[in-house]
């Protein structure tokens, strides 16, 4: 699993685009053997700037596979942006980038 984050400042605003690799399984599909694939989806995404929470996102199973997220908040180039997530099975991942 991975997160790709782009964070770019323009006119005092940081725009971020994050692409998370995650199956986002809905619990309504079956595998090749006909077994139900259990729900496996990201529930919370936190976006921080220099350690301060900017946005908390909460997701359900209807967010697409390999989720994409676009947000904006105040800040400057050189700031640190951190994107982290946790899913319903307790898996987590995070990525930190410097704002360009």
């Amino acid at each position, binding site marked *: 699993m991975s997160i790709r984050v782009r964070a770019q400042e323009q006119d005092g605003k940081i725009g971020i685009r994050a692409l998370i690799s995650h199956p986002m399984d809905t619990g309504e599909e079956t595998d090749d053997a006909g077994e139900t694939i259990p729900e496996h989806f990201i529930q919370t995404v936190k976006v921080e700037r220099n350690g301060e929470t900017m946005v908390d996102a909460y997701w359900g*199973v*209807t967010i697409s596979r390999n989720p994409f997220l676009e947000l904006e908040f105040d800040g400057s180039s050189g700031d640190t942006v951190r994107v982290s997530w946790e899913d319903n099975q307790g898996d987590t991942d995070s990525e930190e980038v410097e704002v360009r």
Partner: protein
Amino acid sequence: MISTKRRVFLKGTLAAGTVGAAVGAGLLAPSKLLAGWSADMFDSEGVENSLNAVAGTTDIQESDDIELSAPEIAENGAVVPVSVHAHMDNVEEIAIMAEANNRSLASRYVFSSAATPKAGQRMRLVDTSDVIAAVKADGNWYMTSRNVEVTVGGCGG
């Protein structure tokens, strides 16, 4: 069903626990209590139940100040780009729902004062659907909606 048990558990906790007492005494606002991922909200079936779970009401004023962007026609319901920008002051939260999805609530975004009240995501639509954006600003809820025609449905919740 797991979701039903969760709801019963939550209600039981509220009724019996000290948290319930705190809410009853007006010490905790419901929105604060429901911060965090909530099965009660995300397992709600249909827009009315989802609005009730998220906003506590379905009597919500339409607003032209909510910019909801989504394609008129989506060829692939598995990946529908939806973005919302609330052109209002003191926006605390944006919730995005789809009428056709069984579990209608797709997402909630809770903003700090430094954040621009907008969010872009990609979501599933099982079928042609109204997409609803609900916005909490200055403690009040507002909404807008847009229809998206889906030609090939995505397997949604």
